[in-house]
């Protein structure tokens, strides 16, 4: 059960994100056959890059799919982005032959991999989390299931993990 946060009350208001080129690129590894997809932090790099703008309402409890979020010490959203197919179980394929759908998805044999997110390094950022819909059992469809936290970190933990050299 996702904890209640003070920021959850105002669901449709997108946070105003300072436009800063100071960001963290965070790399995660995953294993779809492991519990909670085996999501683990691999690497944090400081990069000079502006993070993309927010285009959706803040995430709510019970939503499906995947996203990452940054909150302040009061639990208010500072930043978030959807993650579409960050840990894909299927792969989109194409066809131009008659009788074939131009777009469709095929099961993906590879069950492990990495994904990256770009997170603005905001001064009042206190926590970082990745939420994702987890299949009931390995191999089952996950898309419609309510997302749950698969990574939860203090933001300072992220900063401490910044790679040097």
């Amino acid at each position, binding site marked *: 059960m996702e904890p209640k946060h003070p920021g959850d009350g105002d669901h449709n208001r997108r946070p105003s994100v300072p436009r800063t080129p100071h960001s963290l690129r965070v790399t995660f590894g995953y294993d779809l056959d492991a519990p909670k997809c085996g999501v683990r932090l691999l690497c944090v790099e400081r990069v000079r890059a502006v993070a993309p703008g927010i285009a959706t309402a803040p995430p709510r409890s019970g939503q499906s799919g995947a996203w990452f979020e940054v909150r302040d010490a009061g639990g208010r959203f500072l930043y978030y982005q959807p993650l579409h197919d960050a840990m894909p179980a299927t792969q989109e394929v194409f066809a131009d032959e008659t009788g074939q759908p131009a777009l*469709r998805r095929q099961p993906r044999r590879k069950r492990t991999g990495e994904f990256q997110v770009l997170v603005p390094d905001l001064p009042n950022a206190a926590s970082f989390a990745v939420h994702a819909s987890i299949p009931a059992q390995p191999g089952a469809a996950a898309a419609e299931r309510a997302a749950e936290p698969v990574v939860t970190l203090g933001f300072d933990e992220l900063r401490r993990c910044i790679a040097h050299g």
Partner: protein
Amino acid sequence: MGTSDGFVVSNVKVVDHGDDALRFNIVILGDGYRASELAKFHVDTDSFVNTLRATAPYNDLWCALNIYRVDVVSTDSGADDPGTCGDGSGGSGATPATFFDATFCGDDNTRRLLTCDSSRALSTAHSVVAHPSMTMVIVNTSEYGGSGGSVATLSTHPDAAQIALHEMGHTAFHFADEYEYLQGCGTGEAGHDHHGGGEPFQPNVTINTDRNTMKWRTLLTSATDALPTTNNANCSDCDPQPDPHGAGYVGAYAGANTFYCGCFRQSFDCKMRKLANSFCAVCQQVIRDTLSPFLPDAMPILITPNINFQNIPEGVSGTGVTTFRAIVFELDACMAASRHLHISAGPTGGFGTPLGTTAELTSTGGAVVQARIWLSFTSGTAGTSAHGSVTVHCDETGQDFVIPIDASTVARPKSAIALVLDHSFSMTEDVGDGTSKVDKLREAATILIGAMLPGDGLSVVRFDDTSQILMPVTDVGPVTVGAGRLAALGHLGSEIAPAGDTSIGAGVVNGKATLDTAQAAASPHYDNTAMLVLTDGVENTAPMLIDVRSSITASTFAVGLGRPENISVAALSSLTQAHNGYILVTGAITPDQAARLNKYFLQILAGATNANVILDPHGELTPGAEHRIPFWVSESDISVDAFVLAPAPGFIDFQLETPGGTRITPGSAGGNIQFVPGPRVSFYRLALPALPGDAAGSHSGRWNIVLRLARIRGQDYTHVTAAAGPGLLPYDVVVHCRSNLVFGATLVQTSFEPGAIATVAATLREYDVPVDGRATVWAEITRPGASVLSLAMPQSEPGHYSATFACSQSGLYTARVRASGTTFYGSPFQREQTLSAAVYPGGGNGDGTGGPRDDGTGDHHPGTTGGSGGGGDPFWCDIVRCLLGGGVISSRLIAELTARGLDLRALLACIEKHCRGRGRPSPCPKTALSPEAVSRIAEVIAREIGG
């Protein structure tokens, strides 16, 4: 396979909108291109970039993107094409060695799945830019194929670019697929009938069809149409029903996110459902929101980091000069943008904001635009200064610009003018309106003296065949009663009574001498020195102009009183053009142009003191009529002089109407307004703004001069007839200004013979910056015979305008050069200046000699275009010139000859014509003539008279 199969050559930023840290960076890599095929890779990249740019909404967001092309050479060409694939298709079996190992059938099951080593692709992209937002690999094969994920891969097939755009929708904008199946319609697949579960977090699919809460509620096409827009009657397969609405309709269509039912998409078809379609409205909005932080700021740039009102002159009559300076901002926006600027603090230090405190920068994208906020400063007394600052805030960017302001007041620029006046015998002649030339000269000089500014210097020099300085340069003193003015007027009586011959050069030498002496003694120096030479004749006595002109340093203007063929037009033109001036020739003055000489003097006064002429019309007042003569004054103008010239200006009720509608009358004089009545001219002198209590309404805008005949103590208008003569009361209006918008015009001729080409040129500068593209300039050419030619003067370079016309008829051409336009701030302005051109047979080549010249060696040289003479006897020409110009023939003899019917003027013209080919006269010995010489002179005179 892999890195041993090629190498990275270089990268090129093919779309560059600035700092990579601030933009959405797309890196395009090539695979399967041999070195010899890199040119093809460039073409393929350009093709994709063009497709991307043509795809909405990227076309509007282009400035947010940087795109790098990375040239990678592979050992072999193309991509792997396995001989067999899980879908049963067969390939060529080719296994080219390529850098990113691109291969069809990338999952061993689907032929069209073209994949590459995405880790290597990302690593390569990271070596190019710190954070690639999107990495793509174009594979050198024309077979249709591609794939998505962290790296989008596409072939060079014409339709493959759409795969990359679709995959970019997933990777960069996190769109869900909008198709309702996983493997395809009619496949009977299980587990995709009902979505169930929670609301998808992706922005383009939903399970919520409540129009008040659904995620794209603000983009719904209809506020009343039922939702969902469609339902699928068979949740085990794709919905076969067609689109109930047209393309572009935003609603809630059943079937999305790979489920047949329970999940809805925004539009019937979108690029996230079918590759060939556009992105729908919801996807476009998400792309806009996501890319908005990457758009350039469109930050206003301050072009004027400080504002200086340095060395602003003291005003006229104790009123300060109000000057404007602009705070200039610039916006170099990649795309359409508006920036609102306003003064948030200040200005301190006593500076004004006469034209508002706001400005707006509006760019349509791609071009630099400017906006101005104007400050004003009113000068004090010489030697004082002021300092302050102003803060301007930009609403959109939050920038605050603090701009220091400094000002200082200096003494008003002073001018010294030498009037060099011809009083040769011919000045007794009627000018054409029943007035003698000398009286006409007295009238014009009196007007000029009355109009001079207090503190300016004036000298009076006369010449006939000799020259005398009647009055050295003297401060004219206050208006009307200044001692210098009165002294100068005193010299215009008997001291310029006509007598003798014509040595313009002698007058010019004395004019130069008096100005040089005054300048050497003046402290501070005069800012302008100028000479006004008036003559009605042909120089016939040394020193000649050609011999003295090189020594002149003052600006030199000339007025030829009479017909051009009787005046040394060529020599005077050459003299004035070499010294920042010009010549005006009156021609025969008819009664309806009685004020022409007066106007010419006033115009030259303006030129000599760096003032500008705003307008110069003529009219006639009738009883009961009110004439309103409009003229434009701009914020660039500092002061205005408005003259009414008339035979009896005292009988004219002369008022000014400000742009704000206030009437200024003679009774309004005081403060910034001065009214000076006179016998031939009355004028207002205004320091702007004329009414400090109504500064906005009495400076920039359309003014009117309002004229009507005045009733004097109940008399009817017969008093006008008594004063001005029978008929209507003619008047001329002249308006001058001192301004930061300066107009100047010149006229040069190829020769002074009929057929010459005259070039009229004009310049316009505002605050020393060329008036570029904001003005129209033209000339009204009045030809001999009074026909008028309107001559457009196109801009040849910023602030420069010119045109030519042919002087085919012998006689005088009067060019009224006019300009109208708008100032920096958009206020209308007008300017004009009159110039003269003249051609006549024997007019010469324009080198100032009027014909042949003498180089001082004792030899005579023919002129380039010649005169009409050349056959005269040099001895006799010298003799006759010597007699006429050497004081041998007395004024009394000349008067007697005239009384006896000898037209001396005709005689002199005849001799000049006869002797033109003989050059300058030889030095004239001051000895008595022998009887033989006298006899031969008599023969010549008799022959000339007889001819």
